[in-house]
């Protein structure tokens, strides 16, 4: 009997037994992604949790070719794979990078920018769980303001805002860039399909639940992901040739605290005397949301 949660996936493109933690977003993301991209896909994976999840040598969790590569150069490796396949007449084969936020925002950033600017025909998917989780929860430039990590421990919590990678990526004149959430599966699947059918460099950033890193209950991964979107901490939007569309506008104003209070990495923000910090996160989130709405209103036809 087909499990009820598989109703969206007609044919599984991953094997069971992936090595992810309970409540990790990677496997769910990979299942849906692979079910849409199909077998005629070459995945390029830099050092990341997913490199382990999809299988150490000699395992392969995906029913497709997987090229594991060095941390800093997923986009460059994918560029070479793409060029080779094109030369062999396999222009229809999808080349997809699956990377974490460290391999995207930080060490892989130069190669990403290069490939994006060249317009390589690659789909880049970043599972943004806001830290180097594979090495044990160290801060990246995607780590949220206020979060505690092993390199921003205790009272040394992160006091800088995460890099606006979507803004930077959008500035590369891409045909398609989008954010997506596992809690909004139809939106996520629609975006993957849209990205699949566009030629050029495409970028999707997915909010990545990580129970060990975020100090959350594995059973709450989707619920917290939904709260992140509802509280506008993780807005869902698309950028097509510099034109912004906000895909989901929450009707009710939910404070960021509603999402953050479930995450142990923000626990200190709920102690006495921390209200000011929490207000700061709320204000920043509101400003970013307002800016997104304004971007949506601006025609960028060039």
């Amino acid at each position, binding site marked *: 009997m087909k499990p009820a949660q598989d109703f969206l996936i007609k044919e599984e493109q991953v094997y069971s037994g992936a090595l992810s933690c309970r409540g990790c977003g990677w496997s769910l993301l990979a299942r849906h992604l692979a079910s849409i991209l199909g*077998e*005629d896909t*070459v995945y*390029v994976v830099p050092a990341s949790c997913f*490199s*382990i999840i*999809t*299988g*150490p*040598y*000699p*395992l*392969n969790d*995906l*029913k*497709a*070719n*997987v*090229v*594991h*590569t*060095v941390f*800093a*150069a997923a*986009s*460059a*490796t*994918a*560029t*070479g*794979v*793409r*060029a*080779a*396949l*094109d*030369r*062999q007449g*396999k222009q229809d*084969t999808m080349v997809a990078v699956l990377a974490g936020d460290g391999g995207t925002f930080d060490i892989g950033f*130069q*190669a990403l*920018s*290069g490939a994006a600017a*060249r317009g390589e025909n690659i789909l880049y998917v970043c599972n943004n769980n806001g830290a180097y989780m594979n090495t044990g929860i160290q801060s990246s430039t995607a780590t949220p303001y206020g979060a505690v990590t092993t390199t921003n421990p205790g009272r040394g919590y992160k006091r800088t805002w995460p890099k606006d990678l979507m803004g930077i990526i959008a500035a590369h004149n891409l045909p398609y860039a989008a954010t997506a959430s596992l809690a909004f599966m139809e939106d996520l699947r629609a975006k993957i399909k849209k990205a699949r059918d566009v030629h050029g460099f495409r970028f999707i950033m997915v909010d990545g639940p990580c129970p060990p890193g975020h100090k959350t209950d594995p059973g709450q991964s989707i619920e917290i992901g939904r709260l992140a979107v509802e509280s506008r901490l993780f807005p869902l939007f698309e950028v097509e040739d510099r034109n912004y569309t906000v895909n989901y506008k929450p009707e009710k104003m939910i404070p960021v605290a509603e999402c953050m209070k479930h995450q142990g990495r923000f626990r200190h923000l709920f102690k006495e005397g921390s209200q000011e910090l929490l207000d700061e996160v709320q204000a920043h989130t509101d400003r970013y949301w307002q800016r997104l709405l304004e971007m949506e209103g601006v025609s960028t036809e060039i």
Partner: protein
Amino acid sequence: MKMETLDSAKSTSAGKAKYPRHREKIMKGNFAAAEGARLCRTGFVPAYPITPQTTIVERLAQMAAEGELDATYINMDSEHSVFAAAMGAAVAGERVFTATAGQGLFYAHEVLQAIAHFRLPMVVCNVGRPSIPWNIWSDQSDSLSQRDTGWIQFYGESSQEVLDTIIQAYVITEKLHLPVMVVLDAFYQSHTSENVWIPDQDLVDDFLPPFRHSPMEVDLENPKAFGGLVAPEHYNKLNYSYWKDIQRVETLSESVAKEFAEKFGRSYDNVEAVNIGPQTKLVLVTISSISSTVRGVIKQFPEVGLLKIRLFRPFPKASVRKALAGLPPEAVIACVERNFLGDREGAILQEMKRALYPTDFKLYDFYAGVGGKDVPPATIEKIIYQALHRPEEVNWVDVD
């Protein structure tokens, strides 16, 4: 390479073709390297500029743009990305070429390791220059410092040798699935014009068969994973298999060179011995273009021989021992080092000691020409005099 090639220029001007199915051209070393890549029908060239290599990738860009070369040419964002893209194309089954130098090679270091130990075939030219303090001139510290990355390394003495070695290197790399670095000297070779015999395309095609796809590549019909984390129980097996194959290089390189000589008329060895026999009191060991200077100087010194190392990685122990078989035990061996790797001894002496151990030969080291300082015949004469009369174990020439 034997000296006849240099003389061949004269015979051509007299109208006699020394090498059939070739045309003769005066060209810079970097253009000879690009010509080699073109003749080998490389299909993918990721590129990034760095002096003194730049004119190689510029020439390849021109060839690709004008249709002389059927290759995908991509301007990358760094050497790290160049080598990563080369890796991606090789794993997906293309014949790959690129070129770099100095800092570019250092920057690509981790990818060099990955390419070699993912067992991917490719040929890359490195135009040798040192690192810091900043310097762009001739020096082999860059490539020699990468000798432990798992790449096969050849050092070319002339532009002809560079071109010919690239052709041989593709045969070797595609047979063993080990990447090959062909090294030439900055400016003395890269930007200096020489007579070069360019083989006809069909001659190269006869020698180097079209690229065949291997089961170690991306296969859409039979998907697999490449390069995943390797646990200890598998890791040593992979290293063991690499270790067995790297030891096949010395004899394979010899047989490929022999077949090359039959087809192209120019012969190369892993090492070349000049004037090494019972009369020899001193052997100078060299790599790259300093070999040519030594060749000229020792014509005045009947008791001095030359051992030129062409294949440096894996260091051709058997070839070195064979070349020195007739050397009297009281003879002295002096290594000429245009490299500085931060230790007391330079790379050539380290390798020679390893190859000859245990030995009664006295081995000395002469640092000469690091950072591109000219090593004229007078410096070689100085080294000869000092090696024969009052050598220290390690000597710096022309430092004062």
